[in-house]
């Protein structure tokens, strides 16, 4: 097994007396398709916030390609290839998708500070943005204002923005949250089509999707890792059935 | 020397208390409703003129004119809230700024038209004039009165918000409007009541301010900046925050002028900038 691309070492985070992340150590090898599951309030989103830097851990380390990024600011982690999406749409309501994604591409290329050069002079960036949008089936909507897009397309745009940063590691926080079942299948087919060497960790509640797309599953309960293994093992683990599935159905 | 310091601090505290009464209503309405009411100073001015009319034209004693100032400002403000301001709750803060500034213009022009541009002196009862000697020090009687009034108001507000049904509703609405609505709280009328309370306090502050800082049609503009300083330094929606901020600013201002008079004009702004840079949410702010 090769060196993991992303690795956390006993991450801890508390809010006051509430421990939301306890001693989480996970590893994502190159090209991973890991799912992060767990009941509501298990600390899944908090963990992503910790990894991407929206939150600072109380203790523990985060390593990207072997380098310690625990204290690295969010934007710098993105530049190193660690990107996330948000469970609740975090978009630019008054921009069009082509503007938003072009912006993300320009930011990646370090061209966003050039205030004297017209945007249209960055033809490659615009082309790349449009290519990403087309790939995500947003080509026809690229020039519509984001706030007027249907919800499902906004979820796609959420992902397009992340892809524009050319991530090595992509953390997807419930990419299909709130999307009807038939559309969510479409969304995951987009995810499945992402380059094989891209490392992906996704949070998802729909178990059928999890078992279809994930090659490995991390089960998080009350802030700690309960189990990490292959789908078949997780599926048959009695603790998971009790803690997670039992609760989900109860 | 220590005595001098004490008296300077006392004076600063009294001035701070005036700022507190003027500002606390703004803090509550801004914190509760997210409504940027730059006309708060105009309601204070209204209270001031109400007191002037009540004492001079109607012959009421000064103390009795204070509730009049409160009630007049509260009633007028609630009329505005019901008819105009409520349309702006969802209109964004820029629109709120523009609208309420417009109202301050209108209020200032109206005051100049009705009352003229001159200062409006008021006559105080004998026991509020002059000084009270205590332990060899001379304290301004009116300043003592101001501090007492401010403490009473703080007490009433804190108790009212902690222990009354209305207070619970206000706190619930501040924390989470939607949840409060779900609990069957009539958020609409809670807003109206809070607004009336906040503006009433401004009116009371305006009445109390005449003796200390005078009253003319530019009052609404003039004291707006100080009100906003108190509110921001104290933290939105926090009564205790406004109290602490107002005391601190009053004392810092007077102490600054006393010890480093060259910096007198800068003190209050410097303190504000430094505090807000360190604690953007204010001294006792939630957000």
């Amino acid at each position, binding site marked *: 097994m090769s060196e993991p691309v992303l690795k956390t070492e006993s991450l801890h985070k508390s809010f006051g007396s509430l421990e939301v992340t306890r001693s989480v150590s996970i590893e994502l090898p190159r090209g991973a398709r890991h799912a992060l599951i767990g009941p509501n309030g298990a600390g899944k989103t908090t963990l992503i916030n910790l990894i991407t830097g929206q939150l600072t851990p109380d203790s523990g380390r985060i390593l990207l390609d072997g380098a310690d990024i625990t204290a690295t600011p969010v934007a710098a982690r993105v530049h190193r290839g660690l990107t996330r999406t948000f469970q609740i749409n975090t978009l630019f309501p008054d*921009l069009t998708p082509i503007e938003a994604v072009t912006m993300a591409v320009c930011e990646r290329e370090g061209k966003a500070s050039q*205030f004297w050069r017209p945007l249209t002079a960055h033809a490659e*960036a615009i082309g790349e943005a449009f290519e990403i949008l087309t790939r995500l089936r947003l080509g026809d909507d690229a020039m519509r204002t984001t706030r007027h897009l249907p919800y499902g397309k906004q979820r796609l745009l959420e992902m397009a923005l992340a892809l524009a940063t050319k991530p090595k590691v992509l953390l997807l926080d419930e990419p299909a949250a709130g999307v009807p079942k038939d559309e969510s299948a479409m969304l995951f087919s987009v995810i499945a089509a992402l380059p094989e060497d891209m490392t992906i960790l996704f949070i998802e509640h729909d178990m059928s999707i999890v078992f279809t797309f994930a090659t490995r599953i991390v089960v998080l309960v009350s802030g700690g890792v309960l189990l990490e293994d292959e789908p078949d093992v997780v599926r048959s683990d009695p603790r998971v059935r009790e803690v997670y599935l039992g609760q989900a159905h109860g | 020397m220590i005595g001098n310091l004490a008296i300077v601090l006392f004076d600063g505290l009294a001035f701070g208390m005036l700022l507190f009464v003027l500002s606390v209503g703004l803090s509550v309405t801004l914190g509760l409703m997210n409504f940027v009411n730059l006309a708060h100073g105009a309601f204070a001015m209204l209270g001031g003129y109400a007191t002037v009319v009540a004492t001079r034209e109607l012959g009421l004693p000064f103390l009795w004119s204070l509730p009049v100032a409160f009630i007049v400002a509260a009633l007028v403000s609630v009329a505005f809230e019901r008819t105009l301001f409520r349309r702006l709750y969802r209109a964004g803060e820029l629109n709120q700024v523009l609208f309420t500034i417009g109202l301050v213009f209108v209020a200032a022009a109206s005051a100049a038209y009705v009352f003229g541009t001159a200062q409006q002196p008021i006559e105080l009862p004998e026991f509020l004039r002059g000084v009270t000697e205590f332990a060899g020090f001379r304290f301004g009687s009116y300043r003592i009165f101001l501090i007492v009034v401010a403490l009473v108001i703080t007490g009433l507000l804190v108790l009212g918000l902690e222990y009354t049904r209305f207070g619970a509703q206000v706190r619930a609405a501040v924390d989470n409007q939607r949840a409060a609505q779900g609990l069957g709280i009539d958020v609409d009328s809670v807003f109206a009541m809070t607004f009336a309370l906040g503006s009433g306090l401004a009116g009371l502050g305006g009445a109390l301010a005449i003796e200390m800082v005078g009253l003319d049609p530019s009052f609404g503009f003039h004291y707006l900046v100080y009100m906003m300083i108190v509110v921001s330094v104290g933290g939105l929606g926090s009564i205790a925050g406004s109290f602490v901020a107002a005391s601190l600013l009053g004392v810092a201002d007077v102490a600054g002028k006393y010890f480093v008079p060259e910096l007198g004009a800068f003190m209050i702004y410097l303190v504000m900038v430094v505090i807000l840079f360190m604690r953007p949410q204010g001294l006792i702010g939630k957000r």
Partner: protein
Amino acid sequence: MLNARTAADPHAWLRRQARWSPWEVVFWLATIIPFYFFPTYLTLASQVAVTALFAISVDLVLGYAGIITLGHAMFFGLGAYFAGLLTKTGWGEPLSGLVLAGLFAALIGFLVSFIIVRVQHLALLMITLGLGLLTAELANSLGWLTGGTDGLQGVDVWPIFSRFEFDLWGYTAYAYALIVLFIGVVASQRIVHSSFGLSLRGVRENLTRMPAIGSPYRRHLQIAYTISAGLAGIAGAVLTQTTETVSLDSLSFQRSADVVVMLILGGTGRLYGAILGAAIFMIARDQLSGMNPQYWYFWIGVLLMVVVLVVPNGILGGLSRLVRGRGT
């Protein structure tokens, strides 16, 4: 067919966003009208142009980058004083004075930006206000340099290109202010339509997302704030040069507040909203105060309130909705 193709071409679409509309051409042609038909309004027109430029500088931070400010007169005044003091050293050439004043204000803006980008919302508003008031107090207490409340004395600006004197009617003043405004608008448009301008809009639209797409947004804000400060400084310098006066009022809170009011009145985030707001506010003030010097601001207040109730996005916002509504 052609329509469908252009609609699908993002390059063409983005180019179209940055293109001049016929309205803009009409607008700039209209700015020449005062020379021929309202020659007695030229001094007012020149001050409208100055204020419009100032409002544009505020629009860059408030309308585009979402930095709300109540202290921008600080940079306007610094530019004004710098331009005035420069002439007192014996160098009264206006164009270089303009550039130097702008650079000076931009430098101060750059220093201040380190504070500004670390706070938001009410704290940001109050810190800008506080810094503005501190600067005004500083200018007052440096009476030996600034002349205090009496204003700076002995400002002597040379004729432009050693030829065009600032005349009593205001021909030179308006032409000068108008040209500077035009250059300011063209430069601002270039900035707004750059990749940088796009990122600024991103910051305004969603501050949380910016770092998540790898944006060093604080640096963007610093650049925007610096540029805006420089532009405000240039506006102040034009005022100094066209009036040969500088008073403490150029740094006052009232000027900071007025310009924000004008900007909101015209409509934020559109550049032309700033110009329109400044023009409407100042012309209304001139006409109303001419009719009733004592109580004119009553009607200004009514104007502001009515605008909010009728066109909540500012006058230009309302107009553009009207035009678009008709178009489709």
